[in-house]
């Protein structure tokens, strides 16, 4: 065979006479995306993704089937090729009625692969579940305890009866993993690069974990005595037993992360000292100051911010609250404050909230449990004055509100009712209406609210080697998993920065089903299986102590709950060639959104589930069944847009014919074929 030489994208490629463009590219390490080609079957030329342009050649060529001539100069990324390929991919994705990931995972701010770990939990593989979670963050049990689980709000199981208890499952798996044979990640060889992280809360710990795993030397500096940040000093023990957090922090430390506690910036060390000690610095300082209520008299003794109140409880220096406590605010911090107040022995604890329960940002379950524990709710009230006696609060005057017309965002704003007030006798007023950032000593650019300014997709501050994550970089205080999400993305960016080329974070393109009505209709006749109720200690008992309120479920109960998962995401994500190709250039299939080709899910082949909705008609399965397996069981039915691939139609004998060789499922470039048995 004689040798031929061609040039692809400026690179000289050597091959043999008779090679296709694709073959010669592969031999020379040039990637050309293709979806319908496989060397085991004859060329087909359906997908149009492998198009390339040749200099002096009029038409674009399919690299899968075009035999090269010596001396060709080819381009896989010319404007014309990119345009044709872009449209091919957009067309394919516009007709691909499948979800790459479940809505749980897409909703999770950290992008945790909920479906995958829930599946492992359903099989009792807790360590594997933890491995999947730790692909995103290192605190599964802790976060499982505290997370308000946005994932569950999107869980499609709610269209059957109720969402899967994803957060509890995570807590359970995390705790089981901690008991013995705890999973630990492999650490990449040392890179010689150093990272300093200021702040050891969920974001700081997560960033430390990822960067350490990637082989960098990481040191966390934290002002408090122990690591954990708000997880430790903001969340009461009854919600997150600190031994769980301790264990998870220790695992991170065991990876070689250096943890320096009790370091206050500007007092114990300067920012510059820390910054100059490392190749990159990450600011993860959180938001540790309570916002002021903004009413007259709030400087009086007996008025305290929720953050300080909670921290003092946790550090063993409880605040003297008296019998009557008012907690101003409706978020989760307000919940922690009021329920802690009950536990400290207050007789009357009131939540002061200017809207109604429907608008409360706090978790429903928390509100419910606080009510069981005796917290009173004064909805549609707003403090206007705190009245003191001898410098100590005595009562709080509340303006009565009503809900006005919905604003632009659809939320109904509270407006005062003229002249209507109530007065509440109080010994303590806890302000839980928001948190502020204290960036003292950090010489970086802040915005008017004192928030650290970072670039959106790189998390970089105005200093080239300093990055910021978590509450410290957002105008609005978030939940732990949001801060963790920042850290997940930022650690990738920082890693790229340390390796010499900063790459902004870019969310991968994923396929998302758009027609929710169709999704709901498909779930209509699912058998209902009730969501498991996580048992809690009785209110009368739990309200007197700070011990964990949750009663552990059995393995069987947990696994059954996990089995409720509908597995909305795709089993093939990760190996899917379609989504790999769809991410090889910028595409926007939404502009071509239209009808989907007809199709449904069926299992006519014995151990293979065929989801026609995900099929891209590359016909690889048909050709494999014909040419490799020599069975001819699969065929194209219909014509044009409505073509589907079917096994021998309504044929009971298919079961006898199909040898279960799985060649069709193995070759499928996407998740349309799934081996189920």
């Amino acid at each position, binding site marked *: 065979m004689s040798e031929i030489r061609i040039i692809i994208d400026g690179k000289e490629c050597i091959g043999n006479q008779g090679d296709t463009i694709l073959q010669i590219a592969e031999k020379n390490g040039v990637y050309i995306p293709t979806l319908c080609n496989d060397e085991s079957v004859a060329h087909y030329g359906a997908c149009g993704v492998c198009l390339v342009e040749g200099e002096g050649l009029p038409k674009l060529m399919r690299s899968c089937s075009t035999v090269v001539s010596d001396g060709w100069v080819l381009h896989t990324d010319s404007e014309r090729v990119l345009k044709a390929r872009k449209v091919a991919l957009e067309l394919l994705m516009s007709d691909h009625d499948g979800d790459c990931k479940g809505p749980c995972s897409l909703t999770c701010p950290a992008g945790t692969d909920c479906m995958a770990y829930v599946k492992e939990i359903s099989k009792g593989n807790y360590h594997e579940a933890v491995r999947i979670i730790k692909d995103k963050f290192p605190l599964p049990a802790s976060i499982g305890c505290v997370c308000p689980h946005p994932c569950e709000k999107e869980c499609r199981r709610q269209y059957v009866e109720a969402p899967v208890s994803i957060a509890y499952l995570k807590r359970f798996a995390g705790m089981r993993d901690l008991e013995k044979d705890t999973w630990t990640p492999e650490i990449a060889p040392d890179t010689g690069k150093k990272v300093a992280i200021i702040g050891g809360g969920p974001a700081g710990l997560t960033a430390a974990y990822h960067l350490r795993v990637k082989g960098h030397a990481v040191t966390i500096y934290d002002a408090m005595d122990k690591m954990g940040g708000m997880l430790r000093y903001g969340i009461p023990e009854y919600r997150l037993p600190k031994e769980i957090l301790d264990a998870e922090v220790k695992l991170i430390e065991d990876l070689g992360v250096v943890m320096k506690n009790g370091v206050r910036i500007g007092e114990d060390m300067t920012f510059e000292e820390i910054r100059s000690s490392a190749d990159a610095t990450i600011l993860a300082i959180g938001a540790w100051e309570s916002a002021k209520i903004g009413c007259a008299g709030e400087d009086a003794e007996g008025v305290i911010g929720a953050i300080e109140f909670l921290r003092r409880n946790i550090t063993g220096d409880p605040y003297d609250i008296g019998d009557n406590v008012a907690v101003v605010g409706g978020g989760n911090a307000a919940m922690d404050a009021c329920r802690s107040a009950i536990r400290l022995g207050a007789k009357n604890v009131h939540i002061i909230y200017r809207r109604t329960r429907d608008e409360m940002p706090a978790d429903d379950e928390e509100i419910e449990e606080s009510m069981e524990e005796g917290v009173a709710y004064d909805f549609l009230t707003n403090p206007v004055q705190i009245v003191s006696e001898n410098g100590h609060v005595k009562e709080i005057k509340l303006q009565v509100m009503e809900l006005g017309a919905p604003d632009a965002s659809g939320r109904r704003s509270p407006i005062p009712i003229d002249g209507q007030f109530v007065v509440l006798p109080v010994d303590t007023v806890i302000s839980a209406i928001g948190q502020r950032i204290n960036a003292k000593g950090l010489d970086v650019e802040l915005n008017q609210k004192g928030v650290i300014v970072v670039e959106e997709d790189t998390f970089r501050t105005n200093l080239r080697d300093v990055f910021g994550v978590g509450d410290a970089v957002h105008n609005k205080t978030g939940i732990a998993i949001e801060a963790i999400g920042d850290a997940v993305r930022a650690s990738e960016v920082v890693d790229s920065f340390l390796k010499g080329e900063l790459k902004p974070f870019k969310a991968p393109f994923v396929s998302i089903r758009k027609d929710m009505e169709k999704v709901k209709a498909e779930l209509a006749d699912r058998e209902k299986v009730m969501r498991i109720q996580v048992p809690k200690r009785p209110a009368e008992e739990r309200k007197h102590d700070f011990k964990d309120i949750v009663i552990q479920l059995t393995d069987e109960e947990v696994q059954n709950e996990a089995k409720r998962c509908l597995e909305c995401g795709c089993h093939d994500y990760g190996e899917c060639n379609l989504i790999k190709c769809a991410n090889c250039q910028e595409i926007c299939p939404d502009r071509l959104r239209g009808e989907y080709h007809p199709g449904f899910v069926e299992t006519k082949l014995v151990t293979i589930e065929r989801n026609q909705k995900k099929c891209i008609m590359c016909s690889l399965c048909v050709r494999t069944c014909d040419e490799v397996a020599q069975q*001819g069981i699969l*065929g194209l039915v219909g014509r044009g847009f409505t073509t589907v691939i079917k096994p021998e*139609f309504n044929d009971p004998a298919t079961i006898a014919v199909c040898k279960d060789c799985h060649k069709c499922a193995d070759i499928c470039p996407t998740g349309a074929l799934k081996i189920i048995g």
Partner: protein
Amino acid sequence: MCDCKDEKGKALDAVLDEYGRDKGSLIGILQKTQDIYGYLPADVIYSVAAQTGTTPAKVMGVATFYTQFRLEPVGKYLIMLCKGTACHVNGSDRIEAAITNELGIQNGQTTEDGLFTLKNVACLGCCSLSPVMMINEETFGSLTPDKAVGILNDLRNRKEEQA
């Protein structure tokens, strides 16, 4: 089993013999099979597949690719309404509206009494007479909505007379 089925079976055998049971002649075999049965019943597709040494999936692939083949029985009168360019320009959409309105069926459907099936087809090649329809190989040209409905009524009456 009734005799008629046997007769059709024999006719099918004759067709298969004529084409030497060659899968390369599948289209011709299916055309003649359809002439025998009026459509392509599932069991016949199986039998054709077995006899020509191919698989039902492949026969089904061919049978569903070409518009001529039908997997369901059709009405006594198959109305093939031309949707070619000339017919389009000369108002075939209105003819279709008149027919669907008159018969209460859409393209591809058969009337409940089993008398009419409506099928839109690509050009019938009688463009100068557009709009055109063909009913059981008889071509009707220069249609207006009224004329089309009149033709359907004539066919209906013809049936009643026979009854």
